[in-house]
């Protein structure tokens, strides 16, 4: 432990902290992008043409099972070189696109599980009442499908927060990059990297507890409300 220096710790702390705005801002930007793009996946995979659906499913599978780090590099380094449609993007925009698209495939699955959880009778009722497609989705299906997924969506916010330091590899100056810069300038990596770890822990641990509470609260609420025989939420949370 004799290599630990509190002086350097105190010196590095404000330096590293300067990056927190970028880290949190990028988290929110990526998350919003993923939330919106997730909807697009949910709807395009419902297109009633089999080959189209099949292609969409494989694209989603491809995005989901390849590393987000490589996808970031692709968007940042390769996209500008693609003839015709390529353009140079700033590191921040590249990160929003890269991480946003990667996690949108996961979020699309969350939406789907919510929609699948809506009771069949609700679809039939909206048809019986002669609702248009638009009304069916906005008035009947989505208001019931989305609330039960809120805890899961919250989890993805925390996951996103922990993925955002990947963006330091393409030069987004969040807390991890600030720590690396400090290390390069002063040749001390121990303290700044420890500070980054502490900052992540301090921000993500309370959020995780909060989400957990929310989840329990929602479970109780939806269990009470749903009539016997249809319990979408308890099914979604059953072990295994």
């Amino acid at each position, binding site marked *: 432990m004799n290599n630990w220096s509190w002086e350097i710790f105190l010196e590095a702390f404000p330096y590293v902290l300067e990056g927190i705005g970028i880290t949190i801002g990028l988290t929110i930007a990526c998350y919003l992008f993923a939330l919106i793009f997730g909807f697009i996946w949910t709807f395009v995979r419902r297109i009633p043409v089999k080959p189209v659906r099949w292609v969409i499913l494989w694209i989603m599978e491809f995005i989901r099972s390849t*590393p987000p780090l490589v996808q970031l590099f692709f968007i940042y380094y390769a996209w500008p070189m693609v003839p015709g449609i390529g353009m140079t993007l700033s590191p921040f925009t590249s990160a929003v696109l890269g991480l946003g698209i990667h996690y949108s495939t996961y979020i699309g699955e969350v939406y789907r599980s919510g929609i699948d959880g809506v009771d069949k009778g609700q679809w039939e009722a909206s048809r019986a009442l002669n609702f248009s497609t638009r009304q069916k989705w906005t008035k009947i299906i989505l208001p019931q499908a989305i609330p039960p997924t809120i805890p899961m969506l919250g989890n993805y916010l925390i996951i996103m927060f922990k993925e955002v330091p990947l963006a330091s590899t393409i030069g987004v100056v969040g807390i*991890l990059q600030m720590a690396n810069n400090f290390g390069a300038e002063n040749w001390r990596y121990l303290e700044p990297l420890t500070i980054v770890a502490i900052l992540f822990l301090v921000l993500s641990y309370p959020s995780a507890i909060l989400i957990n509470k929310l989840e329990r609260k929602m479970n109780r609420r939806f269990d009470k409300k749903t009539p016997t025989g249809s319990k979408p939420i308890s099914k979604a949370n059953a072990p295994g």
Partner: protein
Amino acid sequence: MDAIVEVFPVLVKGVEITIKVLLASIVLGYLMAFIAGFCRLSNNIILRKITGFYVEVFRGTSLIVQLFWLYYALPILFGIEIGSDFWAGVLAISLNYGAYMSEIVRSSILSVAKGQTEAATALNMSRFQRMRLVIFPQAVRMMLPEFGNYLILMLKSTSLVSLIGMTDILYYGDILRSSDLSQAPTVYLLVLVFYFIIALPLIWLTKKMESASKKGVASQ
């Protein structure tokens, strides 16, 4: 087409490292998951608290930070050399995902019906027998689907080891890109395809594990 022929053999050189890191991380990660999962259910409060701390720290920070910390900071702090970038990478990945998966182990064991424990006690089984013969076999099948998902997450995370200088697929991709930027689209697309091909058997395995866990269980 020429570009692909040129890039392909270079990237192939990295496949070995990626697969080695992946396999070592999977083995160590599952091992860690069971050790930590059981420790959190132990009667010993100190053991429980220590593993609880480990799990929360590794779940609460990001993998890339842990990797850098193990690689750059740990040797300075304790004067311990992990020995190689290989083990720094494998340790970071397996400790991180081990922490996540230990929660699956713990919750699966806890969710085996209470009557099973009571029945085993009534049959005069010892605590160890109860776990080995009755609880654990039922818990494992509940763990399978989630464990499958983590295989792909671990594969994706192996790409991080290129950041500490290991010569995996992405490392060779970066070298090709820095020597000729105009090749970047071909290079990174091919890197993605490489990872996807490695992921295919894992996706298949995940589906298998899922169906194995459903087999013979009455749906509720």
